């Protein structure tokens, strides 16, 4: 069987050419990169953007009164504006540059959490959270005496919200992923936010897996914090974003102390800068922030709706083809409805690491392990899964190759 999927992205061949890394062979086969949920590949223009900064206008930002520094500052702040428009923030002051999603969530836990939570307060999470949206809250709970509560999931891997209102009692913060990195489930964060706000709780959304793959509008969702990483959305590593509602960010104490985040510094005390600088101590990842802006331009020229539709088509094809592999079990929703393109599965009799090794032998890159979601794997009572995840540059032929290689793994270990 060969792929007969009509690609949404009309010139996928030209698009793939934008990603130099895809043009290589691994173990004698063309690389099929199916691990974008871990980190995406970068288009040439993002790579060029990094180099352009270092070759032409490398200088620290917000400091020097000279042309290079002014140019760097302008590009850095312009990138902040691009991020703000990308997620429809009310103001670019609401955009804080951090290293990654993990740091963004830790910032909220340390700053807002330490200042606001007391013993007995509750934080509502779900059992499908990535460790980055779990461990910072465990640490906060240990510091403050707050309690963690968890939303369960149903048989299809969707959040079970039947008892949400009861579970929201005494909750000060709901921290939830918009798309599970294991199950692919897309969660109804707007609905959750509305009900959380009704009891006065704030809502933090882990957008690491959603912002790269679908349109995300913080005003439409009516949430309070959004955290995401540049490297999963065609940008470089080392740059991520915390978006926060301005009125909340303005009330939050600093996270890290140092340069850039101050107004006036005395020997014994200092006053702090306005947002977002208050949360950006030290020299930031300048080149990476600028290149993230370039990545956003790239994604928006294609269109987030188009990217979502493309991945949905690939996902539908993958869900259908994977049923042909004997002994294969997919975790998460069985349909493309409210589901993103991360497909985790187990193969009877073959450990996920062995699956991944066999696939690597065919030039297919997937992830095997617990995907930083140990509690979710414990819930399913499995040590690990293999995950194939899709992005705008993937094609149905890669899914065909995946299916052939999975059959080979079954034969080898069966």
């Amino acid at each position, binding site marked *: 069987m060969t792929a007969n999927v009509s690609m949404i992205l009309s010139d996928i061949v030209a698009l793939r050419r934008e990603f130099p890394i895809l043009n290589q062979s691994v*173990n004698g086969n063309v690389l099929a990169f199916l691990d974008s949920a871990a980190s995406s590949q970068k288009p040439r223009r993002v790579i060029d953007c990094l180099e352009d900064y270092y070759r032409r206008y490398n200088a620290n930002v917000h400091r020097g009164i000279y042309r290079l520094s002014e140019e760097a500052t302008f590009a850095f702040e312009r990138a902040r504006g691009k991020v703000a428009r990308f997620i429809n923030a009310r103001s670019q002051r609401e955009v804080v540059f951090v290293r990654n999603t993990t740091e963004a969530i830790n910032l909220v836990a340390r700053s807002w959490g330490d200042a606001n939570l007391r013993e007995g307060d509750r934080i509502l999470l779900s059992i499908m959270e990535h460790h980055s949206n779990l461990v910072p809250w465990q640490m906060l709970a240990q510091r403050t005496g707050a309690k963690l509560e968890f939303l369960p999931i149903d048989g299809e891997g969707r959040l079970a919200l039947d008892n949400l209102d009861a579970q929201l009692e005494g909750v000060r913060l709901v921290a939830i992923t918009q798309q599970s990195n294991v199950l692919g489930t897309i969660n109804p964060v707007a609905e959750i936010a509305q009900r959380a706000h009704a009891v006065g709780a704030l809502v933090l959304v882990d957008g690491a897996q959603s912002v790269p793959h679908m349109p995300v509008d913080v005003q439409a969702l009516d949430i309070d914090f959004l955290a995401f990483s540049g490297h999963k959305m065609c940008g470089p590593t080392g740059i991520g974003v915390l978006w926060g509602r301005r009125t909340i960010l303005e009330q939050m104490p600093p996270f890290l102390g140092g340069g850039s985040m101050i107004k006036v510094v005395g020997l014994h005390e200092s006053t702090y800068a306005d947002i977002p600088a208050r949360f950006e101590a030290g020299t930031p990842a300048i080149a990476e922030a600028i290149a993230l802006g370039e990545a956003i331009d790239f994604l928006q020229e294609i269109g987030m709706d188009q990217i979502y539709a493309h991945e949905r088509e690939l996902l539908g094809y993958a869900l259908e083809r994977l049923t042909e592999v004997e002994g294969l079990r997919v975790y998460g929703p069985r349909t493309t409805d409210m589901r993103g393109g991360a497909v985790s599965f187990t193969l009877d009799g073959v*450990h*996920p*690491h*062995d699956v991944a*090794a*066999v696939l*690597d*032998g065919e030039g297919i890159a997937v992830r*095997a*392990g*617990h995907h930083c979601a*140990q509690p979710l*794997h414990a819930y399913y009572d*499995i*040590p*690990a899964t293999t995950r194939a995840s899709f992005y705008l540059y993937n094609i149905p032929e890669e899914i065909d190759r995946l299916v052939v290689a999975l059959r080979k793994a079954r034969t*080898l*270990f069966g």
Partner: protein
Amino acid sequence: MIGMDDLYRELILEHYRHPRRRGWLDHPDVSAEEHNPLCGDRVRIDLRIENGIITDARFDGRGCAISQASASMLTDEIVGMPVEQAKQFSKDQLLALIGIPLNHNPVRIKCALLPLKTLKVGLYGVGHVPDEDEM
């Protein structure tokens, strides 16, 4: 980069499909269990020790073919071995035993070494286990 055929030699597959010493011992003299948090591999090793000699060994656990085959071969190898000699059993000896050149594969070598780590935790006691580099 080692190829598929090196990684899954027939010997590995044979031990994976038909492990030699899978199970538990009643009242073992030594029992230890170790995990590889990266991939969720788990290995438990039980030992019977008489007069300073390992007279019986069993392993249990779940994990990839490399970790489970390694456990099967290692437990087979150490029966009849003096405890002091088993304590000195090295990483290189294990890799020679299982026959896979994993020295430059930082991820999969952890799978192969998990049973050896478990054995040493059992023999030395927790807290006295040599690092992977020293094994």
